[in-house]
């Protein structure tokens, strides 16, 4: 593994790029999936359309999306924006269902209590429904994060550099070290995202750590 020692700074740079390409879409995707998921849970007639419609997006092969987006958006093929948009699409595809199911699982009694206490719709959503749905949404977010980290590496085939660049580099030179380093780095990065999401979830759900009430 002298290769890693010699190229450590390069690998770190690629990892930073990878975090950017996988992480930003995670946040954007969540912001888009929240209203869509809310619509799906609020209006039952919309549920199948939104769930199946967004689910379909996930069947588009990542390679195809990476190649087609530059042409659809009018960007250069090497522009990382294309990768950001593609990853946001995949994140939305995974999260709409989770958000809808998470919001749908909030007990009616809780919503009615909030309404009875004078909560208007938006405030009830922000301070009652959304916080209670956090554990479910967080589970979906963890899957999306791992999937994003893995899919981003395919972008190397269209020339956008991140950890996946190590794969094509090693493959073209028939040299295993960069490939192994790339795979291990991707798995570590996925773990990092996972731990980060778990930490944020823990901070956002203080009631889950509170002891059972003693009355």
């Amino acid at each position, binding site marked *: 593994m002298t290769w890693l020692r010699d190229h450590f700074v390069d690998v770190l740079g690629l990892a930073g790029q990878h975090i950017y390409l996988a992480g930003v879409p995670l946040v954007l995707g969540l912001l888009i999936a929240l209203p869509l998921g809310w619509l799906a849970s609020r209006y039952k007639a919309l549920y199948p359309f939104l769930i199946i419609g967004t689910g379909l997006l996930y069947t588009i092969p990542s390679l*195809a999306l990476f190649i087609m987006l530059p042409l659809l958006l009018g960007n250069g093929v090497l522009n990382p924006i294309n990768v950001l948009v593609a990853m946001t699409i995949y994140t939305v595809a995974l999260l709409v269902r989770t958000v809808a199911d998470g919001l749908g699982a909030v007990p009616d009694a809780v919503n009615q209590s909030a309404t009875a206490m004078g909560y208007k719709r938006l405030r009830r959503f922000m301070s009652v429904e959304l916080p209670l749905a956090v554990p479910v949404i967080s589970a979906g977010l963890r899957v999306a994060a791992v*999937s994003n980290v893995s899919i981003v590496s395919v972008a190397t085939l269209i020339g956008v550099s991140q950890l996946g660049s190590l*794969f094509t580099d*090693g493959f073209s030179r028939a040299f295993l070290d960069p*490939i192994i380093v*790339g795979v291990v780095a*991707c798995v570590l990065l996925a773990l990092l995202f996972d731990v980060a999401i778990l930490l944020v979830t823990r901070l956002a759900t203080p009631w889950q750590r509170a002891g059972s009430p003693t009355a």
Partner: protein
Amino acid sequence: MINRIIAWLADVTHWQGDDGILRRLVEHMEYSAVALVIAALIAIPLGLYIGHTGRGRFLVVNAVGAARAIPSLGLLYLAFFWLAPRLSGEIAFLAPAGLVLVVLAIPPILSGAYAGVEGVEPAVRDAAVGMGMRGTEVMRHVELPCALPLILSGIRSAMLQVIATATIAAVLGLGGLGRFLIDGLASQDFPQTASGAILVAVLALAVDMVFALVQRSVVSPGLTGRYGKVSL
């Protein structure tokens, strides 16, 4: 743009021959089906065993998460360098691609099978034991049918991922619908790439619909409520 894609797809010469759409479609389905069957043969028994005995839960939860994080492209290249020198002919390329697809398909099937068995209501299991069933009978006659919806949805999501990912087999020079993506990219032929993408998505949808029908017919009506309410 759309017109050029339609024109590409409507061109009969693109459908025929050894590098035509029909041939690539069959190859794509072959790769996907073989990988899915191998993955199911490994993951379903393992998932049932872990769900039934409760042994190795920790292992499943963590191994499944870790396996999901492995980037398919990197694994494909690693598998290629590891397997290709040991094999000869087309199998030297098929085996690495197959391995990647199997590794991709195992986590969703395994967690479906495990969660399905573990989610069987304890009262139902107790009732089966109370009726005199032994461990394997409980498994076969009660736990397996009850777990079937989750097992099948695990297989469905594995299948969608495998069909989408089987496109990267083309990176090693293999066939399948990925050829249109890779060849279209190499020759700057956008309609070809777009057509390839559309074909993969349509294939995934069609297979998913067939599977939805299968799921409907093999899941016990007692579970889906299609018998209606039992009157006493």
